[in-house]
């Protein structure tokens, strides 16, 4: 349901872009941020391609958003977390904050599924966090010492079992009764 949070706004902005000959830079900012948040990277890429060149050059924040976009496209977490540390304007801040939280969570989920063990230093670089912050973020992971480097053994997250909804149960019962007859 998190995705839906910005959908109304997104629709409005998209319409605005289609109907104005030169939409304001604000529109582009927010569109870009929302695309990134919703992980619609292809959209973000083409948005960047259609923004007029003079806007790109004049507006620092837009360029910064594109750096985020590029980092996400190349799956480069280190760059992403580096570039997201920026003085965002008031309108963009809430979206960017959400984006940051979401990407952090994704990174930790990914490391816990993709790694049996990972050097603390590497993860710190990927997440652009200090040892202290990292420690708080994944306090339940096991730590080991490997020579003079510290190594983390991520803990698999238990997938949260989802309860079947009434709708599904209904379909199942229909199916069973069909088989019985």
């Amino acid at each position, binding site marked *: 349901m998190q995705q839906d949070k910005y959908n109304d706004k997104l629709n409005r902005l998209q319409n605005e872009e289609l109907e104005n000959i030169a939409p304001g830079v604000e529109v582009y900012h927010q569109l870009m941020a929302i695309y990134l948040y919703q992980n619609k990277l292809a959209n973000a890429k083409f948005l960047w391609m259609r923004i007029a060149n003079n806007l790109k050059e004049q507006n620092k924040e837009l360029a910064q958003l594109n750096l985020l976009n590029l980092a996400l496209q190349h799956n480069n977490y280190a760059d992403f977390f580096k570039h997201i540390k920026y003085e965002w304007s008031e309108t963009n801040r809430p979206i960017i904050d959400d984006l940051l939280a979401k990407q952090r969570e994704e990174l930790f989920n990914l490391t816990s599924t993709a790694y049996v*063990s990972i050097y603390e230093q590497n993860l710190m670089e990927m997440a652009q966090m200090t040892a202290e912050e990292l420690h708080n973020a994944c306090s339940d992971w096991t730590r080991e010492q490997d020579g003079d480097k510290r*190594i983390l053994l991520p803990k698999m997250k238990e997938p949260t079992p*989802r309860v079947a909804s009434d709708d599904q149960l209904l379909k199942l019962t229909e199916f069973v009764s069909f088989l019985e007859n």
Partner: protein
Amino acid sequence: MGSALENYVNQVRTLSAAGSYRELADELPESLSLLVRNWSILDNVLETLDMQQHTLGVLYVLLGKLHSAATANPEPMQIIELMREFVQRSNLDQLRYAVCPFYETCHLFTDFLVQHNLSILGIKVLSLAIDQIRQMETQLTPIHADLCQLSLKAKNFNLILPYLDTDITDISTVAAECKNQQQQQPQHTLDANNDAKYFLLYYYYGGMIYTAIKNYERALYFFEVCITTPAMAMSHIMLEAYKKFLMVSLIVEGKIAYIPKNTQVIGRFMKPLASHYHDLVNVYGNSSSEELRIIILKYSEAFTRDNNMGLAKQVATSLYKRNIQRLTKTFLTLSLSDVASRVQLPSAAEAERYILNMIKSGEIFASINQKDGMVLFKDDPEQYNLPDMFLNVQTNITQVLDLVKQINKMEEEIILNPMYVKKSLGSQDDDLASQHPKTYSGDPTD
């Protein structure tokens, strides 16, 4: 000159008021050249007509305006505004009598916008136009191709995607529309020849749009429709689609995707013209990234000329991924440096990056152990016992059932078609007459 235009206005007014739209639609094409000649005072004509009441009259004025755009050089914003107002306010009942000129207007409008680099402003107008003129959601109109072109030009695919996602069951063509209305208009015969062009363009552009947003499966389908369209001669659109088809099928399947047999055009005309691409396919089959890199470099000029260089790079990346995927079938564990050397990546770190990305996108199941630099390949953890999977299966079943219903419905339509009945009955009689003795003697129970 002025009086001729006055006649035009009067004609439109009287016939519209009398409700004889058919007659009006038949007579108006003759006035088109008059309108084009008097482009400078068309705005005055517009003022005397009402979009709602005199839709047909306004349509031809618009057509005249667009035809004369090269000489008149009108203000682009004014044309866009006019078109927007027209598609919003025009009277659909009247418009039905003039579908062909309406299509033509949309085509000219598209060309006009592309020339003026204002494609993005036309997307909404044309999508409204499609919504108005199509008789059902699954009908393809020639305007679809225009909308695709504008979307590609403007690099904005938000509005076009819903149209591309619906499966087409019916095609509205200029030829069919003219036949419906028993119009024999010389200037439309030329446009009728373009039906095939707009059909092919729709699938070609659609495939490009899907490729751009990396929905390669659907893109492959679109290119396939484009290249397998029954034809006696090859269209250049089909050739370009065939080139892209080859590349996308490498990305999706790693080999040339299955092509139905009834397409002699491909073997006879396209293969010799796309030899570079066939070389690429052959090299891809060797699974050597190094060789692939060399051949892409070798043909880079041709690929760049065809605007397919970006796609070629995607093909190269896909080979790395495919090779890693192949490793998971053979090995349980492998060191990162081994992975790198086997798939010809420069370093272990690079291999780790690829593997991490593939785990993220769910292409392989593995875990990396940085401590001893090893990768553990795992099996697909899906056990098909979760509600999510159930939902997935359920939706797939519903889709297939809907498709079956649709096919049955279309088959019924064909069976009930008098032309078909006549033909099939006729040939059956022939069959019975000629084959009767043969089947009789070949009968094993005899």
